[in-house]
């Protein structure tokens, strides 16, 4: 077509020659066409070297035309944020402005200095060489490692956040068809016509698979016309979803399949706006299918011969694809080395494109079949019983060395002929793509007749066509129809007949088993024969591994790194296994198989994350008062998923208070006048039923049978191992009606805990639990002025004897129906006002309207923690850690030892370890220096002079500065602490200081509890 694209054909292929696209590779500008992949465009432009191999730095070119490509792995992106590492050029559609670079090679891929190292030093890098060296001196390893790391890796990560968005689509279907080649389309048609919900996913830019470059006719039409007809019918059916550019990456349990749809990667490196709106760069379809048809086709295997990695060595099928689909002949003179008939197409296509075929080298002594006849008819030289044993050339193939080979003796059996050429196409047969089936855990089985593994299928999955070794087009179509029809029928859909297109039968001879081609020299001395191109694994490497005793194929893989690249061994694994089998004198099935794991091809993290990122990473739960907190400058603390006000810093004289200053101010306000806390996040569970009381008695450590209507009580919950798990106040609303409160973080778990016991152990108890956490907003006003404040806006009688501590009343607050609880977590006179959340903002604001004269001060969780700690009230999860019993907390007062039912946790308290008197027990700590605020988490010792390791006897669980005491104070657990009041303990700190503290009662403030009772 143009001078600029020396390998582009004048006509043919599925590209649009009228749409010219410009792109850059390694900084140089090239032209391609709409419909090209990056790989086809590079080949069209005669770019031979696309990369350098990572271990030996050898020049590498394009080998394949699809997902199995090991070499054409490039860095994409025209800006820093748009970088995409490790893009397979064979799967990247060309777009205008595409910018790509090789991932290895310094200073560039053409003149790579590391290549010299590879050439000279390759000898010294057998598999596992790093296990055998870099050990001395030991101190140098981190330095060695730095250089090893630098030379590894392929592309690079962007260093700026991703500008793109991604999303998920949860799909459900009757039949999922994976692959839209001949088998997949036939299966889809059969299933779709039954009315079943069908999804068809195909990884390529266009659906049609091998039909897009086929030489065969369907109903007398070119194959792609049949494809177009079928796609048109499918697209018109409401029960069918077609997903092109969509790779099935993981087959998970019970037919859950993840499909990775690339929605904009064929357009630009950053998703362009669509109708002025952002669109997802990629979408993950999370598909639950009832039936799955795997029509994933087969991968061609290259032959393993010396220097088979020099650019210009390609798969035979890829040669056909580039010529017929993209209108690109990747060279001038071809030698084809094959073990089968099918590959002959490459030579026919090559010659049809007007370029020279030097010879077809067939490993079989007497190949016969229609393709062979066609080649003969075209006058192509066929050399039988032979193979290409070595490629010549450095940055491009310059010749093929061909020789007769003895397959049984594994040796060269004749004179070597050197054929001048620039391209060697090879084919060693086909490997069904069994990856998805093996994700399910089912091991594939080897079939000698097709020289490949076929998938073992769990119920509900079927394979069609090449995916289980059926290759002839007519058979493939029939197999597809059968698979699609059976799948639909299995779930009760009536299947209509599908007439198959007429396809001429093609006579093909058997493939011979050839993996590694023998060389004149033994494998260890021959030039490198590559098995896994991306990881530079050679036949010699595999042989060496087996010599060193690595006999399991898993060992061989791991020792040589075979199959661990981004191509995951699609090209190399079977050849590698076959070589290992030969070295070990076993058959391939004896050597075993390798297990493929998801993903089939790599999947962008962003696509898996979907929109669960940034501000939607995890829900932020808000109370009904959240806006007020934001507007009033609150700093927030994450408590579970809730955003709770932590403290409210004021700006005083243009200076924002520190947390310490704000908290001190908030604490003083509560102790002196009145403060207000948004306590809406506490879990609230409505409990109704005649057995509610009995249930509470079983689930709490303390007693509930006598709690009167109108009263509230603190309760402690344990698990059956005796360890404290939650606490809170539960109120008796009616004789059969209670309101339980739980910790903020424990709400959901406790509701499930109650249901667990009710449903599994005590279904006979008549009781129901319903969460009302979100229904009620809870505002806690606390401090000496609380009663005065509340009395201004309520009709409830707040008289100290009429409405006592640990009681509740209902009435109106600020005109809103409210339940008011007189309980206290600060030790001060406290009312907790509960209103329906929709009214909360009104009530809160009304309190502030009336609160100004009382210096009503909003306070957050930090102040709440200080105030409760001054009173010795615990926070479950802070002062406990799952290893603390009620007795350890000194809360025997909250334990009903003589309750008739052996409540949850009781029995465990009498185990030897829970009975120990020297368990860690909750105490108060008074620092000897009142200015010291001990570190939370500081470890406590009795003997500060003890050498390390020092016996630790406990740790600080809560520690604050108390404005009321004008001193630091702490809660801690200390071994036997409850019997060590007044004793001194030591806290050796990281800065070398050792603090001293006295063990005291955990109640620091108002020990008699007078203030809450006023």
């Amino acid at each position, binding site marked *: 077509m143009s001078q600029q694209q020396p390998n582009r054909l004048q006509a043919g292929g599925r590209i649009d020659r009228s749409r010219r696209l410009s792109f850059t590779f390694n900084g140089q500008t090239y032209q391609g066409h709409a419909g090209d992949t990056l790989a086809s465009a590079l080949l069209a432009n005669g770019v031979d070297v696309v990369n350098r191999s990572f271990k030996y730095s050898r020049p590498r070119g394009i080998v394949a035309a699809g997902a199995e490509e090991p070499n054409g792995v490039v860095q994409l992106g025209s800006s820093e944020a748009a970088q995409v590492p490790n893009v397979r050029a064979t799967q990247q559609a060309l777009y205008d402005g595409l910018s790509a670079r090789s991932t290895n090679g310094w200073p560039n891929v053409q003149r790579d200095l590391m290549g010299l190292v590879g050439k000279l030093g390759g000898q010294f890098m057998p598999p596992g060489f790093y296990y055998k060296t870099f050990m001395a001196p030991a101190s140098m390893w981190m330095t060695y490692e730095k250089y090893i790391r630098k030379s590894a890796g392929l592309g690079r990560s962007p260093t700026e956040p991703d500008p793109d968005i991604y999303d998920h689509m949860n799909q459900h279907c009757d039949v999922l068809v994976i692959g839209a080649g001949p088998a997949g389309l036939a299966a889809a048609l059969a299933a779709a016509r039954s009315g079943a919900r069908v999804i068809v996913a195909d990884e390529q830019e266009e659906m049609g698979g091998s039909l897009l470059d086929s030489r065969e006719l369907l109903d007398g039409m070119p194959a792609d016309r049949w494809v177009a007809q079928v796609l048109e019918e499918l697209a018109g059916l409401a029960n069918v979803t077609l997903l092109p550019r969509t790779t099935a990456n993981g087959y*998970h349990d*019970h037919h859950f399949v993840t499909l990775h749809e690339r929605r904009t990667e064929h357009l630009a490196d950053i998703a362009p706006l669509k109708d002025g709106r952002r669109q997802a760069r990629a979408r993950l379809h999370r598909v639950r299918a009832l039936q799955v048809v795997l029509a994933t086709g087969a991968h061609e295997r290259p032959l393993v011969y010396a220097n088979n990695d020099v650019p210009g060595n390609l798969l035979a099928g890829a040669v056909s694809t580039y010529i017929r689909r993209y209108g690109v002949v990747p060279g001038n003179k071809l030698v084809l080395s094959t073990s089968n008939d099918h590959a002959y197409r490459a030579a026919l296509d090559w010659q049809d494109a007007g370029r020279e075929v030097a010879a077809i080298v067939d490993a079989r002594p007497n190949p016969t079949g229609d393709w062979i006849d066609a080649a003969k008819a075209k006058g192509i030289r066929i050399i039988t019983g032979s193979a290409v044993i070595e490629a010549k050339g450095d940055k491009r193939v310059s010749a093929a060395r061909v020789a007769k080979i003895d397959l049984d003796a594994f040796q060269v059996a004749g004179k070597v002929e050197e054929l001048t050429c620039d391209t060697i196409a090879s084919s060693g047969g086909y490997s069904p793509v069994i990856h998805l089936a093996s994700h399910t855990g089912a091991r594939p089985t080897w079939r000698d007749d097709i020289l490949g593994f076929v998938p073992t299928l*769990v*119920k509900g999955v079927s394979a069609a066509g090449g995916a289980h070794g059926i290759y002839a087009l007519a058979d493939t179509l029939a197999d597809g129809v059968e698979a699609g029809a059976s799948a639909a029928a*299995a779930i009760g859909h009536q299947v209509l007949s599908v007439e198959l297109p007429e396809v001429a039968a093609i006579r093909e001879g058997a493939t011979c088993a050839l993996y590694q081609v023998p060389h004149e020299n033994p494998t260890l001395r021959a030039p490198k024969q590559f098995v896994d191109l991306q990881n530079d694994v050679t036949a010699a490497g595999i042989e060496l591994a087996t010599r060193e005793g690595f006999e399991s194929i898993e060992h061989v893989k791991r020792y040589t790194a075979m199959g661990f690249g981004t191509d995951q061994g699609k090209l190399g694994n079977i050849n590698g296994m076959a070589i290992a089998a030969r070295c070990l004198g076993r058959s391939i099935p004896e050597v075993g198989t390798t297990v493929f794991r998801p993903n089939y091809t790599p999947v962008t993290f962003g696509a898996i994350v979907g929109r669960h990122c940034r501000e939607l990473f995890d829900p932020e739960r808000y109370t009904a008062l959240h806006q007020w907190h934001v507007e009033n400058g609150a700093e927030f603390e994450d408590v579970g998923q809730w955003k709770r006000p932590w403290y409210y810093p004021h700006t005083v004289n243009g200076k924002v208070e520190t947390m310490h200053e704000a908290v001190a101010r908030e604490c003083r306000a509560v102790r002196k006048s009145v403060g207000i806390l948004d306590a809406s996040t506490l879990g609230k569970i409505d409990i109704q039923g005649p057995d509610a009381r009995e249930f509470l008695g079983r689930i709490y450590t303390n007693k509930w049978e006598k709690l009167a209507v109108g009263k509230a009580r603190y309760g402690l919950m344990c698990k059956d191992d005796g360890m404290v798990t939650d606490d809170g106040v539960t109120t008796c609303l009616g004789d059969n009606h209670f309101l339980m409160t739980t910790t903020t973080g424990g709400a959901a778990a406790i509701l499930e805990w109650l*249901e*667990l016991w009710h*449903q599994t152990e005590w279904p006979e108890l008549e009781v129901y639990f319903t969460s009302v956490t979100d229904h009620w907003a809870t505002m806690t006003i606390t401090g000496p002025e609380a009663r005065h404040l509340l009395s201004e806006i309520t009709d409830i009688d707040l008289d100290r004897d009429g409405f006592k501590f640990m009681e509740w009343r209902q009435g109106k607050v600020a005109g809103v129906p409210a339940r008011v609880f007189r309980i206290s977590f600060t030790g001060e006179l406290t009312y907790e006002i509960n209103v329906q959340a929709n009214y909360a903002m009104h009530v809160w604001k009304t309190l502030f309207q009336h609160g100004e004269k009382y210096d009503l001060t909003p306070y957050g969780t930090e102040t709440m923690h200080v105030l409760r700690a001054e009173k010795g009230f615990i926070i479950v999860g802070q002062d406990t850690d799952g290893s603390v019993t009620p007795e350890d907390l000194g809360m025997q007062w909250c334990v009903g030892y003589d309750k008739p039912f052996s409540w949850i946790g009781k029995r*465990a308290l009498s185990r030897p370890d829970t009975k120990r008197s020297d368990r860690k027990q909750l105490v108060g700590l008074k620092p000897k220096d009142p200015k010291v605020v001990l570190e939370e988490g500081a470890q406590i010792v009795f003997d500060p002079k003890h050498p390390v390791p020092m016996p630790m006897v406990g740790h600080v669980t809560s520690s604050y500065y108390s404005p009321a005491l004008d001193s630091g104070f702490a809660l801690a657990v200390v071994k036997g602490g409850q019997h060590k009041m007044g004793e001194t303990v030591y806290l050796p700190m990281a800065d070398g200081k050792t603090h001293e503290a006295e063990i005291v009662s955990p109640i620091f403030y108002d020990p008699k509890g007078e203030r809450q009772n006023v």
Partner: protein
Amino acid sequence: MFYIYCPYCGEHREEEEFHPKGQAHIVRPKEPESCSDEEWGDYLFFRDNPRGIHHELWVHAVGCRKFFNITRHTVTYEILETYKMGEQPSITAETYAPQSSESEAARVAKQAGVRA
């Protein structure tokens, strides 16, 4: 990801709606105080851990919030049956044998999608 038939909702639901809660049919001793420490420790901590058929307690946490039981194969992850609280499994390690294809098909028709 499992596809689980909730015996209370009467349909298959995605695993994300459920939480596993360990071995099924663990009964809290009726007289905890008369248990030895050994018996109590066994009740608290010692569970069946079979490689094969396992009876499990699950809860349809994001759904009907009911606890129920699953008989599941711990290697293939095949769910053989689900049943309500208070019911007993019909398939156990003793009675389980990989079924004939016919009966398997019958079950799949009823609970399609649970096999893998």
